[in-house]
C-alpha cells in the first residue's frame, strides 16, 4: 500500500513537470518573441540566472550533506569535508 501510494505520487509529480515543460509552447508565449531592445529588464542582475548560479552551487553542496537528494543546478562536484 505504501509502495503504491509512493508510486502514484511519483507519477503525478513527473506528469506535472511534463505539463510545465509544455506550457510555454501550448500557450504560444514563447512564439511571440522578445526583441533585443526589449530585454533590458531580463539582463538586470535581479533577473539573471547567472547571478545566483555560484551561490546555488554552494548551497546544493552544503545541503547534500544534510539531505538525501541532489541536483537542481546542472552539475555535481566531488568530495566534501563537511559530509
Amino acid at each position: 500500500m505504501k509502495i503504491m501510494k509512493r508510486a502514484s505520487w511519483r507519477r503525478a509529480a513527473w506528469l506535472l513537470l511534463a505539463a510545465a515543460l509544455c506550457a510555454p509552447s501550448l500557450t504560444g508565449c514563447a512564439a511571440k518573441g522578445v526583441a533585443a531592445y526589449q530585454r533590458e529588464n531580463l539582463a538586470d542582475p535581479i533577473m539573471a540566472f547567472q547571478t545566483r548560479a555560484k551561490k546555488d552551487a554552494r548551497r546544493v553542496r552544503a545541503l547534500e550533506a544534510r539531505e538525501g537528494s541532489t541536483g537542481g543546478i546542472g552539475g555535481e562536484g566531488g568530495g566534501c569535508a563537511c559530509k
Partner: protein
Amino acid sequence: MGRGLVAVLLGVCAASPSAAQATGDPAAVNGLFRLFVDSKHVLVRSLVQDYSMPVAGDVNLTLHWNNEHVTIPGVSAPVGSPEAIDAITTASRPISGDAYQDYEKVRNELEGQVTRGPVAVGYYYSMESDYVGQQVSATYNRDLRDDQLNLSFGTSWGWDDILPLENQRSTTAASTKNTLHWNAVATQLLSPTSVVRFGVEYNHVSGLQHNPYRLVYAGGTTVPERHPDSRERRDAFVKFHQYLSNRSSLQFDYRIYDDDWGVLSHEIAGGLSQYVTRGFYARYQYRWYRQSSANFWSDDYTTTQGIDGYLTGDYRMSPLSSHLFGLSLNADLSVLAPDSPTLRRFALTFDYERYFNNENYSADILETGVEFRF
C-alpha cells in the same frame, strides 16, 4: 595530482596579464568568506577565491580555489555506545586517540575551466586527509530561435579515492567512488519581463557510499554502516523569474528527485529581489523540502543483517522535511560610486541563511563577498 591539474597550471602560466588586456575585456577577482555553524556544533569556515580572465580571442579562463577548515566536536558519550552514535552522524571523523576532543580537518579544492564560444571544459580537484576527489567536465550551449531559446548540455566524470583513517571501532579498506553525470537545460524567454528555465539531470554513482566511520545500532549491538554500491539518481527542475514594475523580481523554483534507493523528494523555493536604490538590492527567500526514506532505512534494526543486507545510521536516508529562510544584500559600487576610480571596481555581498529540519537539526550560514574588477 594528475595531468588535468598540470594542464590547468599551464593554462594559468599562459594567461599573462598582457594577453588579458589585449582583448579589452575586464578580468575579475572574487573573494568570499563563508561560515557554517550547525546545532551539532560542527563548524565549517571557507575561504573562496575565484579568478576570471580573458586569455586570447574568445577564450576565457576561470580558476576557483576553496580552503575549508572543519571542526567536528568530540564524542560526548563512551565510544561505541548508542548515545555516541548520534555524535558522529553529521560529519565524517575517525574515532581514535582521544575521541572526546574536537576533531579538525582541512579541505582544499581547486577548479579550472576554459571556455571558448559555446564550449567549456573543466577539471576539479579536492583533497582532504581521508578523501581525494577529481572530476573532468564539459558543457556545450547554443542559442536558437533568434536568441529566444538557449539549450545547454553538460556531462562530467568524477573519481574519488577514499582512504579511511585509523578507527577504533570499524575497519574499512581504501575504496573508490565514481560518478557519471549528464544534464540538459533549456532557457526560454517568455516575455520582456519573464524567463523560464527547465533542466533534467542524471547521476550514476558506483563505489563506497556510506560513512566508513559510522556505526549503526542493530540487533542489540553496533555494526558498521553498509549502503549499496550503486545508485542511480535523477532529477528535473523548473525555475521561473518575473520582473515587476517597481524594480523588483519574483523567483520560483521547483525540483523533483528520485533514485533507485527509494528516495523521492520535492523542493519548492520562492524569492523576492527588490532594489533599495540604484546599485543596491536585497533578496528574501524561502525553501521547503520533503523526502521519503530509502528502502533499507529503519529506526530499529532487529538483526545485524538490517534490510536486504544494508544498514544505515544516516538520517539523510530517513523521511525528512526542512525549511530554509535567507536574506541577501548586494551592492554594486560601480553604480553607487561611479566617480571613484577605485571604489567603482568593487561589488559587495552579504548573505545569511537559517536552515532547520524535522530531525531537530538546524544551521546558520553566513557569507560575505567582495568582487574586484580590473
